């Protein structure tokens, strides 16, 4: 592939200046911009679109199983932060082009999430480092091995006394086994683990409650009442897609009214989980423990001293929630957030046990992590050793500790004291620059490995492509430490599993594990643990809330702890509630904002403990007052994020990892234009989301079709006879009860349909290209509004307003009822978009598709045309998938069966909120959904007759809390 080679040389040239500078500090803005990587490369606006000449040559030896144009699927797993998720990856002509969930894997059950979907771009990311670096100059793997072996030989003499290894949380059994061997070979070596979003508090809470660290799995499919204590388990939990699925399976409209679950969310920031809650209480982080104590006392946990809650609303909540939980003994869950103090975790455990949930909705097992440690202590120990000069050789396998370490540890300075430091990582990040050696790491789609799911189920990670930019696996580096140079990962992983499985026919075992994507029988067995007397062990209750502003740190819902910051797809993904893209913001409640005199888009200096960062304010309705949320992961050197974002790690200290008080905010007087995709979010009297209570639905199943939702006479008067759809009649239903706003559908659509990344500035100009969006509407008081999610893409109107206005007939109806868009014919008048009441059409105002980066060309789905400048585009209902299913059916001389066409969004949706099918098939699932009384047409009064309809949202309202009813009173319904 000659063009590829040329391009790579280009790429090298671009990096040279960086390699020559000792630190990134010496690089100017221009240079940064070149390094931004996939994010900006993919949003490149470069001019010319002439395509290079291509040569088509036949195979001399056709690879086995490869049929041109026919995709192959391989089972593998993605090691997400936390636990692994099993995948089926679609590969066309040797290129992985789409990620889908593995139905056999317990964490995904065939669905997926935005991170897994977007990891495809991580594979092709042109910014991934391609060379071994020695003191930031290009070097080679053999010379690294020579130096490494040399250093290890010295260590062998010292029994490894100067050898330290730093990993992230290890969930790969094979790697764990290797590290165990390393520690055997170097008995005095130390293995540290550090991940900024770690499970230390979960571990500490478990130790407090049970005296030992047990892993806790919650079964939401059995839970009737759920209390979340600051847990965003639907989006940012350990295995969100499975939890979301189980949770949504018992929402209103999906089960009989008496079985509908009810979620109470108590939280500081406004999370996805809060948006899905039936009742939500904003609470300062420092009040959480006392609230938990109050509930625990009321559900009867023995010996809990609870200070009287001063706030009457909190008191009422504690009372009502405790009562409701008690009424559902054995079918309730109290779930604490990862970030909550150990005491909150311990209290939650005690409550679950008190409520008889243990063994039914709450299951304990042994820990899944290979070697669970207190990560903060582990990192502190490493830093101390480094500072004391005891570290001769530090091997960092993955992660970016220089960026993520707590600010007070001074990890970066300490790291410089290591004699030799080795960093294995995908990007030339801060740690790579600070280390003696940097070894590029493979992407999980390029490597052999294994990983554990949340329940301990193991999956083999198998590669789909040779490493695009070179790169080594952690297994290979670990093998080198064991003196096995250049031992391929495949052998390492196979070897481990041969020993572990002890199968008579290992080949069979291996092939089965690869085929299924899971190693059968590896799930951890449930374990019975008895809570110890918590009252004795709990630290005394905190004094009543101190005054002043507190800050909480949270992983970012799109870039997590910063590991996805180079991923343009994730950068441009609107955060579920705030709908911000490309930046993190300083989130404050409206009341706090007005007290501070700050406003959205205004920049502020945030000072905590003598450290200051500059960020941009975003006023978040429903945020707890006097509390400020900062999210992690932005402003990394390698990403050159110039925008209004801040690096929260600069304020995060080891003492206050998740929350701190004594924050000071000063206005700078400047503004930064954060790119938000939804600047208007009030539900208003237009009710795009129709919402009622479970009670409403029981007493009046037709409520979604009455005032105030339906206010116009039913349309349908026309001079023309209706068109008869003889063959297929495609349609979709979206169940708003099931949507948790996780964005998996958006990301699946992006990768399936080759959707361009446009960049911060273009998003700010309302020009994002996402075909599918999840709208978020607030309803009620700004202090604590309800939020509703509404996925919306082209609704494929039967009487589509876009069609008659296009002067060149570039958008028209197919005989199956799809509103088709002919890119080649489009001249770009944009009249169709103007006339679309849903505004779901997207226009290529500039050349958004990157025609130059070869690696990105490899990523594209060959069945979907990338769009050029000046052309309108929109959701096609995945017409390529429809056509493929039709071809298959035609070969077998039958109709397409229900469930054969699965759109990308439907496939990704963890909660089955999206259902697609043939409306002419009476037994189709989509017809069952559409026959629900909750089914409504968005803007149906315009007589557009959308083929995509929504199912009205039901809230399981608890009157005893005395909250405002959900619907507006008639007098509030003005214009």
């Amino acid at each position: 592939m000659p063009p590829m080679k040329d391009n790579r040389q280009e790429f090298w040239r671009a990096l040279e200046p960086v390699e020559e500078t000792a630190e990134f500090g010496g690089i100017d803005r221009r240079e940064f911009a070149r390094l931004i990587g996939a994010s900006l490369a993919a949003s490149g606006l470069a001019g010319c679109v002439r395509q290079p000449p291509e040569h088509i040559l036949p195979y001399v030896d056709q690879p086995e199983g490869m049929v041109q144009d026919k995709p192959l699927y391989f089972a593998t797993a993605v090691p997400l932060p936390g636990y692994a998720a099993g995948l089926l990856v679609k590969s066309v002509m040797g290129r992985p082009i789409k990620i889908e969930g593995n139905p056999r894997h317990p964490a995904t059950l065939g669905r997926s999430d935005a991170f897994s979907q977007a990891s495809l771009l991580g594979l092709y990311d042109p910014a991934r480092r391609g060379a071994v670096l020695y003191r930031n100059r290009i070097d080679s793997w053999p010379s690294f091995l020579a130096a490494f072996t040399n250093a290890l030989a010295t260590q062998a003499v010292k029994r490894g006394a100067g050898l330290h290894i730093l990993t992230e949380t290890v969930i790969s059994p094979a790697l764990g086994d290797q590290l165990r061997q390393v520690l055997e070979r170097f008995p005095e070596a130390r293995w540290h683990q550090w991940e900024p979003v770690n499970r230390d508090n979960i571990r500490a809470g478990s130790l407090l409650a049970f005296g030992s660290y047990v892993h806790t799995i919650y079964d939401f499919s059995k839970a009737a009442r759920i209390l979340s204590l600051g847990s965003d388990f639907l989006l940012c939990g350990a295995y969100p897609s499975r939890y979301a699925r189980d949770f949504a399976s018992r929402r209103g409209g999906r089960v009989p009214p008496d079985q509908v679950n009810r979620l109470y969310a108590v939280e500081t920031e406004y999370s996805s989980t809060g948006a899905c809650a039936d009742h939500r209480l904003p609470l300062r982080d420092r009040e959480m423990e006392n609230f938990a104590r109050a509930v625990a006392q009321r559900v009867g946990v023995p010996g809990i001293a609870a200070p009287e809650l001063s706030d009457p609303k909190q008191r009422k909540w504690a009372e009502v929630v405790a009562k409701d939980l008690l009424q559902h003994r054995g079918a309730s869950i109290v779930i604490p957030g990862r970030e909550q103090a150990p005491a909150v975790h311990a209290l939650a455990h005690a409550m679950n046990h008190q409520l008889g949930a243990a063994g039914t909705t709450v299951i304990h097992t042994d820990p899944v992590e290979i070697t669970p440690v207190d990560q903060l202590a582990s990192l502190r120990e490493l830093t101390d050793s480094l500072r004391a000069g005891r570290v001769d050789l530090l091997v960092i396998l993955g992660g970016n500790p220089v960026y993520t370490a707590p600010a007070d540890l001074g990890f970066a300075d300490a790291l410089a004291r290591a004699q030799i430091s080795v960093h294995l990582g995908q990007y030339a990040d801060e740690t790579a620059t600070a280390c003696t050696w940097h070894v590029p790491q493979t992407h999980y789609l390029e490597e052999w490995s294994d990983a554990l799911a949340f329940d301990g189920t193991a999956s083999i990670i198998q590669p789909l492509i040779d490493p695009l930019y070179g790169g080594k696996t952690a297994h290979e580096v670990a093998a080198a430490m064991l003196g096995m140079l250049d031992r391929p990962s495949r052998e390492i992983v196979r070897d481990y599993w041969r020993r572990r499985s002890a199968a008579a026919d290992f080949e069979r075992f291996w092939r089965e594990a690869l085929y299924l994507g899971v190693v059968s029988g590896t799930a951890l067995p449930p374990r019975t643990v008895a809570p110890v007397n918590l009252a004795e062990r709990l630290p005394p209750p905190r004094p009543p809330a101190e005054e002043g502003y507190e800050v909480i740190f949270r992983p970012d819902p799109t870039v997590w702890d910063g590991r996805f910051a180079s991923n343009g797809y994730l950068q441009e993904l609107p955060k579920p509630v705030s709908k911000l893209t490309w930046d993190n913001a300083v989130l404050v409640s409206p009341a706090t904002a007005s007290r501070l005199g700050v406003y959205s888009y205004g920049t502020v200096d945030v000072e905590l403990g003598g450290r200051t960062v500059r960020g941009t304010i975003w006023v978040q309705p429903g945020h707890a007052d006097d509390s400020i949320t900062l999210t992690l992961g932005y402003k990394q050197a390698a990403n050159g994020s110039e925008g209004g974002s801040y690096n929260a790690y600069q304020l995060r200290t080891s003492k206050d990892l998740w929350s701190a008080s004594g924050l000071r905010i000063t206005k700078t007087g400047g503004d930064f234009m954060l790119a938000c995709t939804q600047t208007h979010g009030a539900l208003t009297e237009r009710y795009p989301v129709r919402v009622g209570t479970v009670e409403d639905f029981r007493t009046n199943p037709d409520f979604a079709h009455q005032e105030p939702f339906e206010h116009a006479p039913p349309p349908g008067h026309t001079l023309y006879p209706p068109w008869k759809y003889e063959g297929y009649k495609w349609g979709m239903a979206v169940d708003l009860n099931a949507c948790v706003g996780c964005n998996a559908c958006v990301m699946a659509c992006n990768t399936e349909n080759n959707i361009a990344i446009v960049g911060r500035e273009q998003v700010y100009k309302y020009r994002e290209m996402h075909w599918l969006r999840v709208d978020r509407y607030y309803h009620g008081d700004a202090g604590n509004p309800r939020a509703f999610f509404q996925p919306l893409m082209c609704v494929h109107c039967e009487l589509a307003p876009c069609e008659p206005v296009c002067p060149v007939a570039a958008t028209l109806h197919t005989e199956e009822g799809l509103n088709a868009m002919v890119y080649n014919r489009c001249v770009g008048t944009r009249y169709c978009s103007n006339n679309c009441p849903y505004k779901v059409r997207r226009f290529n105002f500039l050349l958004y598709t990157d025609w130059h980066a070869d690696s990105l060309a490899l990523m594209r789905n060959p069945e979907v045309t990338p769009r050029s400048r000046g052309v309108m585009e929109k959701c096609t209902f995945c017409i390529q998938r429809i056509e493929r299913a039709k071809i298959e059916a035609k070969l077998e001389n039958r109709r397409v069966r229900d469930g054969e066409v699965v759109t990308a969004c439907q496939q990704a949706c963890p909660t089955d909120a999206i259902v697609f099918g043939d409306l002419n098939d009476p037994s189709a699932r989509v017809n069952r959904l559409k026959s629900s009384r909750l089914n409504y047409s968005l803007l149906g009064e315009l007589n557009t007759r959308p083929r995509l309809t929504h199912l009205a949202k039901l809230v399981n309202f608890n009157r005893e809390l005395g909250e405002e009813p959900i619907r507006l009173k008639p007098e509030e319904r003005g214009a």
Partner: protein
Amino acid sequence: MPERPTTGQLVPRPPVIAPDYTPGSVTDAISEIVLKKPHTVPWLAAFAVTSLVVLGFLAGIGVLLFVGVGIWGINIPVAWGFAITNFVWWIGIGHAGTLISAILLLLHQEWRNSINRFAEAMTVFAVTCAALFPLLHLGRAWLFYWLIPYPNLMSLWPQFRSPLVLDVFAISTYFTISLLFWYLGLIPDFATLRDQATSRFQRIFYGIFAMGWRGAGRHWHHYQMGYLLLAGLATPLVVSVHSVVSIDFAYALLPGWHSSIFPPYFVAGAIYSGFAMVITLTIPLRKFYGLDGLVTDRHIDNMAKLLLATGLVVDYGYLMEMFTAWYSAERYEMFTLYNRMTGPYAAVFWLVLAINIGVLQLLWIRRVRRHLLSLFVLSLVIQSAMWLERYMIIITALHRDFLPRSWGMFAGTFWDWLLVIGSIGLFFWLFLLFVRYIPMISIFEGREMVHKAAREAGVR
């Protein structure tokens, strides 16, 4: 208070041409501007400035075609912005020319003879500017010909239901008729210039355009017939072109656009802004070229009255549009009105109303109508207001439509403004060339007026 004439007494109307003109002096007065007068400094200066602006315009178009319409402020939801505003504005300005040439001709309003030539030129140039914008606003402007029904191998036709296709027909017809009408009227004058020419170049140049006109009876006969026929063809265009343009909006289902009042409302608005432009052009021309005798105060007064009349029709349109929105009790319609009045573009709305309803009423006062400076300023203000009116109609309907999620904002960028100013530059650049090289007032019709005036004087 002036003494009012008693009933039955005829008030002598002010003449349409100064009494001291003879046919010869009319010819001289007009043709010498073209043939004899040297280039004046003000003309050269104006020409230099407009040439620069035209260069800027070309640069703006170049960047636009090379980079894409993304250089403008348009977005989703506001996918139409300055380009369509400019288009509607320019095509509206063109309307007065046709009205003066065609309808007033058919109605025997002979005062039109002094102003029809440059009003027609104005039409041709304004339509030129207007026609550029629908092309430039396309995402892929080089494929504009796909809007034209032409036989092709793919058997692809335009979508005839789309108002944009009607636009193509309306504008191309309008441009063709306007150009022919203008040129036909020019033929006798080109012949005059050929005959009066002082240099060989002028003789050849004007001779070509005169197409062998000799002033024979048969020529005049055919000319009169042709001119009348073209006037008859052009007359419906005054109504139809802007009606079609208005259907671009009325056809859509957007609240604020979807309104059956749009065609008459737009036509009135077009003529209104067109007359404002004629006044803008007349007053300085008269002054710089000393044509007070040919373009008299009565002309100015008449045009100001027409401005007032059409303006009042526009005001009626405003009121009816608001009334209909309220009367419909339709939440989206009412919101759009409410948003126009109080939303982020409320200033534009109130400014438009203040000028087109408020300031317009000054024209009831004769002294304002006769006071050239006031009238000149007023005409400029009205034209700006009419540009803003189109901006308001387009932006406020688009930026907040049905779903609150899709609401957005629009602001013109440097490139947007460059094309507005650039098109104005192009218009005046063409107009400057016109006043210098083409008789700006119809010579032969001037001579006719002298005859008529003499006859009327004789009768009296």
